[in-house]
């Protein structure tokens, strides 16, 4: 029921490793970790969801917010490592058509 977030910075890329469940309780924690990164001009923000076992609409909303922020601030957001269940929610809601998403287990390297 908890969320663990680790951030890694390389040259032009910030990678967030998310582990656990993203729901109404843990989403604020995710928002706090992502938003400041998307506010940096030219930044590539990669969010690795390999170890996310659960996400619901509050979590999806955080990614919509991050996408809007990245567009407004000229940064780039991509999600990688989504498992089938998590991917399914992005498809059902149509978010896969507006957010840059990569399924499977690939690590987030440029």
């Amino acid at each position, binding site marked *: *029921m908890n969320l663990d977030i680790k951030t890694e910075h390389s040259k032009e890329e910030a990678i967030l490793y998310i582990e656990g*469940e993203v*729901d*109404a*309780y843990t989403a604020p924690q995710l928002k706090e970790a992502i938003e400041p990164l998307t506010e940096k001009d030219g930044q590539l923000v990669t969010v690795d969801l390999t170890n996310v076992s*659960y996400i*619901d*609409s*509050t979590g*999806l*909303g*955080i990614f*919509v*917010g991050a*996408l*809007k922020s990245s*567009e*407004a601030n000229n940064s780039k957001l991509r999600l990688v490592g989504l498992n089938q*269940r998590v991917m*399914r*929610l992005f*498809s*059902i*809601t*149509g*978010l896969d*058509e*507006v957010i840059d998403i990569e399924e499977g287990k690939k690590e987030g390297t440029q």
Partner: protein
Amino acid sequence: MTDHADHFEMKIPAKAEYVGVVRLTVSGIASRAGYSYDDIEDMKIAVAEACTNVVNHAYKKTGYMLLSCVIREDRIQIIVADRGESTEVSSLLENIGPIDSSKPVSELKEGGLGLFLIDTLMDKVEISNESGVAIVMTKFLHRDGVEQHVDGIPTSADKQEQGQKQ
């Protein structure tokens, strides 16, 4: 089909931190009722969306989320209710849908997907409004992989496609 049913009731403080507890409970109940992994995951999301709505919209100050589950031979009925003062919620299910990808990103909404997910992930959803809001969510049990169409009610697979095409 017999009339036999097992009833569960639960009352939990309407706080975001406890939505996960409701998910755990529902996954335990649904697992005992014989549902598949995917069906259980769908129910966990639906029930969490309904609870999150209680946390976010039902009460001015504090209150409770009221969960009840009824297991019947061919279905589970999950009701999430509150004792808030909201009115005119019967039309809520009319304005739901997925993200509109033709819109500019800056106009996308960060909320508003909860009821849509509930409606997509469950087989049958009703909202009523007596003393607070009650959302009644039904999932049918398809034993041995046999898909059942009862009275033309779509299976979850149909529903999902429907959701994606909307």
